[in-house]
């Protein structure tokens, strides 16, 4: 919502018009969160990453919840969390309760997502909830923030929740039009910012960003630096709608032959930098994007060399 | 030790057996090698008996009947003659035809009987023992004799022999007399084919073999073997055993 108070640092920075970066943290099926926290520290070190998304059971897998890591990242590392929440696993009561709880813990950004279907995950026979959809979740957050009530209008004791809410959009969507119309709905019910899915195609990304301009809220374009050829190949083959540019893919493939690890890493990093630096520069220069959401999960070493250009 | 041949004699009841008796009554001496089987007519002597005799190790077989025209059963000995001719043709293929003798001895010819037995015994003695007794050759000879026995048992050939006299003298169903030469030619072909088929049958009795292998073993062209295999398959005697790559092998499935 364009005129909602900026409760989070992220939204504040966005509204300042500064080109910014966000990162992504993925707590997996884990008890020990140190790797996540380490990653967060690396992000913070760059000084350019304003906040980090904390995922909520991506690909429908049963992972450590997103609330606790979000809290720990803020508390222990001091990096603001963008708390991802899917409507897949919770009904409106649980959603309300969790958001309220998270807000008490000081979480300021919530990214409302539908979530990959549980049939895709590692507990395929789970009952997918989808009591609300992501739009309705934004509606719920708006009610909690703006009215201080739940969906039925029952008031929260002690005041309103202070939180900003974001929504997702997919530049790879095909057909495009319903996707844009859907984002419109989300903005209508109170989304404060947009984070997009990853894009490898600069023209496509620009076009998509252009389409989103009319909603007049900050947009972070998702980019996915790729750590090794395997991931790129998987993306290309198995994630429908995403096609990794051929040259990029071939360059990565060539690195498979390099035996020396260090040399190999250096080469991969260089390929990513060569691909993404001009990409991001182009975005920054030609679009109204508020920044880039850099989804380099477990690829901390790239932050420094990649972001130093900006 | 000198070789004492074992000789089997088929004697017709009315002439030759009586002739032998006469030789006895007259105390005419002849070699002890002969063992006699009495038959009512020399026409009763099935060529299969003779093949069987050789299989059992007999060294020579002598068949004696009434003189032509004197047969107690009018024409039995004419049939004998034709049967023995066929037998002789077959035995020729395996060098056994020397070991049989067909002759006529009347009830009055005691002397002649003794003489024939004597001559034949001497003849066989010179010829040596039934080659079956040689260890090296035993399997081959036995196979050959069994082949011949099988051919002799063939219903069609036996039938032809049975009709031969009628066809070549009185005429066939169309009242046409077939010349002996014509018949012989036809008959020889039939015998040869049947012989080859049975040879093949024996070769593939236990183990499937390919056409070229069979051909090599029995010494005829492979294409001819294939033609016989086709016939044998149609009779239900042979079937494909297995197919290794491009080479099918055939095996006998004939019972008994």
């Amino acid at each position, binding site marked *: 919502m364009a005129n909602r108070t900026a409760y989070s640092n992220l939204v504040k920075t966005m509204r300042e018009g500064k080109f910014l970066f966000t990162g992504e943290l993925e707590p997996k099926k884990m008890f020990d969160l140190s790797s996540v926290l380490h990653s967060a520290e690396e992000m913070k070190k760059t000084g350019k990453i304003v906040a980090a998304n904390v995922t909520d059971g991506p690909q429908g897998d049963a992972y450590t919840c997103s609330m606790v890591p979000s809290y720990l990242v803020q508390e222990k590392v001091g990096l603001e969390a963008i708390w991802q929440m899917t409507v897949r696993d919770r009904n409106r009561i649980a959603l309300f309760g969790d958001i309220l709880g998270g807000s008490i813990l000081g979480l300021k950004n919530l990214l409302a997502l539908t979530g990959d279907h549980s049939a*895709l995950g590692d507990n395929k026979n789970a009952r997918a909830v989808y*009591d609300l959809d992501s*739009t309705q979740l934004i509606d719920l957050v708006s009610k909690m923030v703006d009215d201080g009530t739940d969906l039925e209008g029952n008031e929260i004791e002690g005041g309103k929740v202070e939180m900003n809410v974001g929504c997702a959009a997919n530049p790879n*969507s095909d057909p495009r039009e319903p996707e844009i119309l859907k984002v419109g*709905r*989300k903005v209508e019910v109170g989304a404060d910012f947009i984070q997009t899915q990853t894009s490898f195609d600069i023209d496509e990304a620009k076009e998509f960003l252009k389409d989103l301009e009319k909603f007049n809220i900050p947009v972070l374009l998702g980019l996915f630096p790729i750590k090794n050829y395997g991931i790129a190949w998987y993306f290309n083959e198995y994630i429908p*709608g995403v096609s990794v540019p051929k040259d990029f893919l071939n360059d990565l493939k060539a690195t498979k032959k390099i035996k020396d690890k260090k040399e190999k890493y250096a080469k991969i990093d260089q390929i990513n930098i060569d691909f993404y630096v001009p990409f991001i520069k182009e975005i920054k220069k030609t679009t109204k994007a508020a920044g880039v959401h850099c989804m380099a999960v477990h690829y901390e070493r790239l932050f420094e060399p990649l972001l130093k250009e900006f | 030790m000198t070789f004492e041949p074992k000789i089997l004699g088929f004697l017709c009841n009315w002439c030759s057996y009586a002739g032998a008796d006469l030789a006895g009554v007259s105390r005419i001496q002849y070699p002890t090698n002969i063992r006699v089987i009495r038959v009512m007519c020399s026409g009763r002597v099935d060529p299969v008996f003779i093949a069987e005799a050789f299989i059992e190790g007999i060294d020579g077989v002598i068949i004696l009947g009434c003189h032509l025209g004197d047969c107690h059963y009018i024409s039995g000995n004419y049939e004998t003659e034709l049967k023995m001719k066929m037998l002789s043709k077959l035995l020729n293929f395996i060098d056994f035809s020397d070991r049989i003798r067909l002759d006529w001895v009347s009830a009055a010819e005691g002397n002649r009987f003794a003489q024939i037995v004597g001559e034949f015994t001497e003849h066989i003695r010179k010829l040596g023992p039934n080659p079956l007794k040689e260890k090296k050759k035993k399997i081959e000879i036995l196979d050959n004799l069994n082949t011949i026995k099988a051919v002799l048992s063939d219903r069609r050939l036996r039938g032809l022999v049975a009709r031969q006299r009628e066809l070549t003298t009185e005429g066939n169903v169309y009242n046409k007399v077939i010349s002996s030469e014509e018949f012989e030619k036809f008959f020889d072909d039939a015998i040869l084919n049947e012989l080859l088929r049975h040879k093949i049958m024996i070769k593939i009795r236990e183990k499937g073999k390919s056409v070229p292998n069979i051909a090599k073993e029995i010494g005829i062209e492979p294409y001819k073997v294939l033609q016989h295999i086709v016939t044998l398959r149609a009779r239900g005697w042979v079937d494909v055993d297995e197919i290794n790559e491009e080479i099918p092998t055939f095996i006998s499935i004939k019972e008994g």
Partner: protein
Amino acid sequence: MIITEQKDIEEIYEMIKPYSKILVAGCDGCCQPPRSINEAKVLAQMLELKARSEGKELKWKAITVLRQCDDRIVATTVRPFIEEFDVIVSLSCGLGVVMMNKVFPNILTFPAQNSKFGGAENNAENQFVEYCETCGECLLGVTGGVCPMAGCAKNLSNGPCGGTVGGKCEVGGYTHDCAWVKIWERLKKFNRLDLFTQYRPPRNYRLWSSPRFKEINKTYTNVEESNKEEKQ
């Protein structure tokens, strides 16, 4: 039509195992694929074979019922047979099994089928498809006649989600159509994208939760009572 699927023969057999005389009842009603006398007979034959392999003999009779969900039909059709049998095996949807158990309280009726959904035939795909989920709050008016409850894996009221590519859904490996893309196509065709962009608030899942019932022709004694009920 109620789309059903026959249970594994082992599972059915386990249910009837303690009994030696069974009545197998097909249903001529809306059950799809049709489970009439022929299917009942085939099932009975299989159970007999199965019983035999377990070392016992099974007596059976196969019958069929016009509609097992109708208690009156069940009562008249099946009653003449139940005396002779220990249990009934029903080839109807769950409704038939419940009705049989209700109509004949002194004999157990077991299900031979899993009731899957209410659906209709899609001849082009040679499938039965759940086109309606009987949610109790019909949205078809604003979705161009395509149901997002039945057609969308996530039951979204405000779709599509990010899991659609080329109009196909992430669930099922991008083989099924995305209901929301269909909805968009339909509404665009009729120039009613206004309906598409409309925000649809959270749904009333009370309408969708068990047990569900609806009164038949309730009689009211006064106007107030009637008005009061209407409002609720």
